[in-house]
């Protein structure tokens, strides 16, 4: 990622939000290319450490959805 870009790390639940992101593609919606998706089996898998780590790696925002 180039430094001048916004960086958003998103953790998406495999069963809902990940599928919704798929559907956004199928529907040919457009959104900014700043998001990088990490697929997780369920938001239950989320640990605060992942969020902190993402910020430490330079993320501007972290989005957890499920």
């Amino acid at each position, binding site marked *: 990622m180039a430094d001048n870009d916004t960086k958003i790390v998103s953790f998406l639940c495999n069963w809902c939000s990940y599928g919704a992101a*798929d559907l956004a*593609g199928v529907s*040919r919606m457009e959104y900014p*290319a700043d998001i990088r*998706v990490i697929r*997780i089996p369920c938001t239950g*898998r989320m640990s605060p450490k992942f969020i902190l*780590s993402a910020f430490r*790696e330079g993320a501007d925002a972290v989005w957890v959805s499920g």
Partner: protein
Amino acid sequence: MEYPQAVPLKYGINPEVCLKLTKDKCGTCEEVCPANAIDYTQTQETITLDAGAIIFSPGFKPFDPSKFDNYQYVNYPNVITSMEFERILSASGPTMGHVTTFPKLPAKPKKKKDKLLAKKRKSPKRIAWFQCVGSRDMNKCDNPYCSSVCCMYAVKEAVIAKEHAGGDLDCSIFFMDMRTPGKEFEKYYQNAKDKHGINFIRSKVHSVTEDLDTHDLQIRYVDELGQIVTEVYDMIVLSVGLEITPETKELADKLGIEMTANGFCKTDSFEPVATSRDGIYVSGVFNNPKDIPESVLDASAAASAAGDALSEVRDTMTKQVATIPETNVVGERPNIGVFICDCGSNIKGVVDCAHVTEYAKSLPYVTFADENMYACSQDAQDKMVEQIKEKKLNRIVLAACTPKTHEPLFQETLKNAGLNKYLFEMTNIRNHNSWVHKNNPELATQKAKDLVRMAVAKAALAEPLKEEKIDVNASVMVVGGGLAGLTAAKSLATQGYDTHIIEKKDQLGGEALKLFKTAQGEDVGEKVAELIGAIEANEKITVHTDTTLEKVEGFVGNFKSLLKTGDKTCELEHGVAVLATGAKSSEPTEYGFGQDDRIITALGLDKRLKENDTQLDAINSAVFIQCVGSRETDRPYCSRVCCTHSVDNAILLKTRKPSMDVFILYRDIRTYGERELLYKEARELGVIFIRYEVDKKPVVVIEKDKIKISLNDHVLNQPVTLETDLLTLAAAIVPRKDEKLANFFKVPLNDEGFFIEKHAKLGPAEFATAGVFVAGAGHYPKPVNEAITQGRAAASRAATLLSKKDNLFTSGTIANVNVEKCSTCGVCISICPYSAPRFITEGRFEGKADINAVLCKGCGLCVASCRSGALHLRGFDTNQIFSQIFALGEVV
């Protein structure tokens, strides 16, 4: 292609308009298709199939309102059908989910006239729904039946429209009877009224006219007080009914199956998915108008009926897939192969795939990278297998479409190459990238590189995972010996599984023993006796009457239940359980019930009809009161069966003695589907229907010679008093609310005490707990045919599990414990929704946590909450997720 979510997601050629096929011109598609998939020489072929049974599930067509001149569907651009409105609400529909007027115009109109109209597009302020368009109507169309689904979908559309448009949208539904008799439907209706502010107007609109300039719509109707009202709306949605197409009727004729006058399949209440022809079964709307969960139940029930008929030839036609021995890669240095899919132009059109492939080769542990035009095509898969073997790859990364649809396919490819299927990582550079950033190829290519780098980092840490075999005890325990339970037991025993029926009472049959006739006129007692006879004669079935359940242990495939009969207890081992504990009629607490012999419940009347009580002939006036204890604040659901039951009994009384005055006092008559014909028949026979409001209930006064009932007549708007000799109360159907049983199997109950199924639409005969199924009125009140359908459906769902007893495996992506690190805190045990973790009770690691692989669903909740880091989620382990985050942080 019909719509963007179609399966298969492939284009087809419409031979009627294709220039190449009709005039041998054009041919452009053949030239531009990179996969050479266009073949103009394909023609219709006739294929002959040999099959042991047929399931006929042709569905319906929404009613076409074009011929209704009063609603002007064809001429007015703002009069649309509910199906069109459904597409408007959909994010993938023509307006991307925005509710606007003139929805029938193309998004970018080309015609001059359309362009002018499109300028007038606005967000509507008022929308009206007209119910029963093409249903319950013999004047304008020949559909006397109720379509069963329109009331609920109209309420839903109004609620969602308000959600989309915000608070100031005014939604009105014009209806005759509000029919919301399904599970959780009544609450939805009440919420729509009270919380969402949807207006419900009981009236049939007789005409619509259009303002020539604004195209706003003026409607005229008569309100409940008899006044003519004129109102203006921006949009009108016609709630069109369900109709069987002429093609379906023709095909049904060819198959030689009998239909009703309305073109629905004729079935017996006790064999609700069997057509008149042996070996042909029916499911879905063709088997009477119904909504999704009932269609789903039909589907499974039809499968069970076909399975019963063909049980001895099970597994004779299915093919066994040869397994390839797995290469052991443990301890090897990761040797990652990266495959980049172009998806034709879907990905390559935006992302520079060649560049991403080159980039992939530079990543750590990657020894091979290749680009494929279509990675999922058969030739690409074969090539991939060869490449894996040749390059000795031991981890595979695929950058393509979504793992949600394609991961299993590529995991098969890995297996074919002798690799463990969990050594695979897929990243989505189509749905999450090329399709959504099509105007920004540079950033999309950059994103693809990031995603590939993250996937490679994760794949390097992937380990081969083992799927544990689940031993399945191929026997069944059915709790409850009513119709649903007996049906499930009979089907499973016919398919060869040892079945035990547990019944609390001393005889089988349940509540059905108290019923007289079904809505179709079949004698219930006779049919139940036949069914009990068949159960008792079946060697595979053991009946335990006077028996209760004391304890249940175990999980899918391996349950152990303790049965208690009298003072004797015995242990039963079984692989699955069907909970069919039913429901019962409540004891009314109003209308003088219990104070006088002339005031009885619906079942009380059935008893007298069954016994052919001659005193019934002496009665000159009979009154039925509906919704006694149902649709009230403390019992906010509709009991579903009572309207049909009372209408049916009213007809029986009226036919028995035509001079008898019969009244039904109701709130909404809910004779859904072809039950509507009974309502029509009752009115034709002279049964009088008087509607009352819940806040103005009828008042019953018991006098010596007569019972007097006073209420307000809705037509005359005047108080009336009826004198009667027999008052029948349609008492609410209440669940057993068996919390003990629910706890045994860890299945949930709703507020009223009915079982909550796995999924309201798609899992109506099973629980979220694997291996436990639900059938009958314990799920929700239902008539005979629906209880039997659900019994069969539960059997079918159970059979899919039982028949796989030798190859049922757990998932590989589940939690496991590092006992060395476990601090015995118990958080995982308290937090797991599936009761998978437990303490080891003996041996070296006593007191440490352990995960039951069968129960674990791999959600990772325990892993995230483990304070000592003792828990790991295979396939999504902490180090793997960190590796993705770190890979993202690397500046390229």
